[in-house]
């Protein structure tokens, strides 16, 4: 009897597993991966039409369809770096696609309900300007959910059409800096950092000097926090009395008891033990209290790579300097040679 039950259970499990397979393979996810060291961004899966195509699920679309595409942006840089990710749309790549693309609507959302983009596909909409998608630490991921709506009014003239739109991603790689301070009384004084009224403050060990830590970007107050990356998702952990709360994009996800967190303020191979979190990566950092500014600041450089611009400028200055040195030396030789000839 038990044997029969076992066989029936295995059969049911097999049916359930194989029954799920076609569903799992139907929707393809797309990825944008940054591997660090200013390497190229890798766009997957690509298609016959474009090697950087992220719209794997938007092929052969039919009137009445409402299709979704999940795009995961991954920071796979090996070193402990954080990156800021920006996105903008350049719209249709060619006017010839506009008629078709104008019939379709696209919605792009991140984790919040407010869409980043909600317009006809040929438009640039809310992605006309650079939009900061967020900050990712090594191993972190963020998801974009793209929905394409094809109206039932799309008639026969739009059969077998193609449309292309261009999206630009910018990755700004930022170092995770250890905050430093000099005691105004004596630079040689040692110091430590304390959380005073929720604000990270430099406190001198040798005198009464103290100074709140300031954000490099906006001058706002800073607070100590930690980043936990698990399952590719990045969570922030903040102290709250004798417990800690874990947030993502400003929303509290779950609370953690103090006893479940071990040395999470210390950089290194220290452990953090959060309930329901099995695998994680951990980064210690200080964060601006007004964290929202990280998500709303427009990207200052509009085109190209600012690092390269500075490098070219540097090379140009060096070139000018070297040219001047050579010119000065040549003139000197010429002058000396002239004197020689005059003597002859």
């Amino acid at each position, binding site marked *: 009897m038990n044997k029969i039950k076992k066989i029936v259970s295995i059969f049911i499990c097999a049916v359930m597993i194989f029954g799920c397979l076609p569903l799992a393979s139907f929707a393809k996810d797309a990825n944008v991966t940054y591997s660090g060291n200013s390497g190229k961004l890798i766009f997957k899966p690509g298609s016959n039409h474009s090697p950087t195509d992220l719209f794997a699920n938007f092929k052969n*679309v039919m009137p009445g369809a409402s299709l979704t595409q999940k795009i995961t942006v991954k920071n796979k840089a090996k070193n402990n770096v954080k990156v800021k990710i920006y996105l903008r749309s350049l719209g249709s790549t060619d006017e010839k696609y506009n008629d078709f693309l104008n019939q379709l609507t696209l919605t792009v959302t991140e984790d919040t309900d407010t869409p980043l983009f909600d317009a006809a596909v040929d438009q640039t909409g809310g992605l006309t300007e650079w939009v900061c998608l967020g900050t990712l630490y090594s191993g972190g991921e963020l998801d974009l959910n793209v929905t394409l709506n094809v109206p039932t009014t799309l008639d026969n003239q739009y059969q077998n059409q193609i449309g292309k739109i*261009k999206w630009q991603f910018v990755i700004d790689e930022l170092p995770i800096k250890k905050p430093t301070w000099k005691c105004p009384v004596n630079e040689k004084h040692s110091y430590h950092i304390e959380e005073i009224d929720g604000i990270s403050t430099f406190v001198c060990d040798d005198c009464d000097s103290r100074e709140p830590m300031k954000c490099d970007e906006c001058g706002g107050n800073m607070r100590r926090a930690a980043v936990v990356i698990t399952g590719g998702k990045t969570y922030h952990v903040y102290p709250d009395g004798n417990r800690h709360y874990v947030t993502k994009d400003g929303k509290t996800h779950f609370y953690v008891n103090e006893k479940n967190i071990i040395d999470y303020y210390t950089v290194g191979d220290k452990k953090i033990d959060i309930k329901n979190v099995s695998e994680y990566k951990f980064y210690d950092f200080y964060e601006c209290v007004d964290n929202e500014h990280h998500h709303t600041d427009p990207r200052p450089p509009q085109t190209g790579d600012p690092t390269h611009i500075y490098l070219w400028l540097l090379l140009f200055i060096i070139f000018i300097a070297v040219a001047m040195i050579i010119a000065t030396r040549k003139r000197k030789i010429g002058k000396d040679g002239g004197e020689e000839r005059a003597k002859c």
Partner: protein
Amino acid sequence: MRRKKLLILLIAMAAALVTLLTQSSLAFYSILGEATNVITSGQIKCKIIEKMGNADFPAEGVYILPGSTVSKKVSVKNVGENPFWLRVKLKNTMDNSTISSDFMELDLNKTDWIDGKDGFFYYKKPLEPEAETEKLFTQVKIAGGADNGHSGKTIKIAIYAYAVQSEYNDASSPLNVTGWPAES
């Protein structure tokens, strides 16, 4: 003059140094990547298949005599990538005049096709890509009583197939389906 050049050189080097320092306070790297995302629309395509026995029905037609039966197997194949609902219209003429059903009889398949009584025969279920319908009819029978007035005439059985997507176009019956293309 020489001192002036030295001064310029120093300024240039200082500028280079400032540039380096400024750079270090900015992002380590900034990378721009472009994704060209592509959307393509589907289409539906069907092909009418006419067979005589196992061979294709001759394009030039066949000679028939009163009382004879001709093999003509008609079906429709989905040669596109999307499933569709299907309906077929038959237009039987003799020298451009409509033929009486008493004169010519088709063995219509009423198991897989529904006579919509609106001039169309509807295939009962959506036709998947690469699939072929059951035969709409397999033979044409000419009445035995046809007189000499029918000799030398040309009988045409024109078959018009109309397809509309079945995805996002659910219906309990093909008779309730909407979005049929306009009649040609």
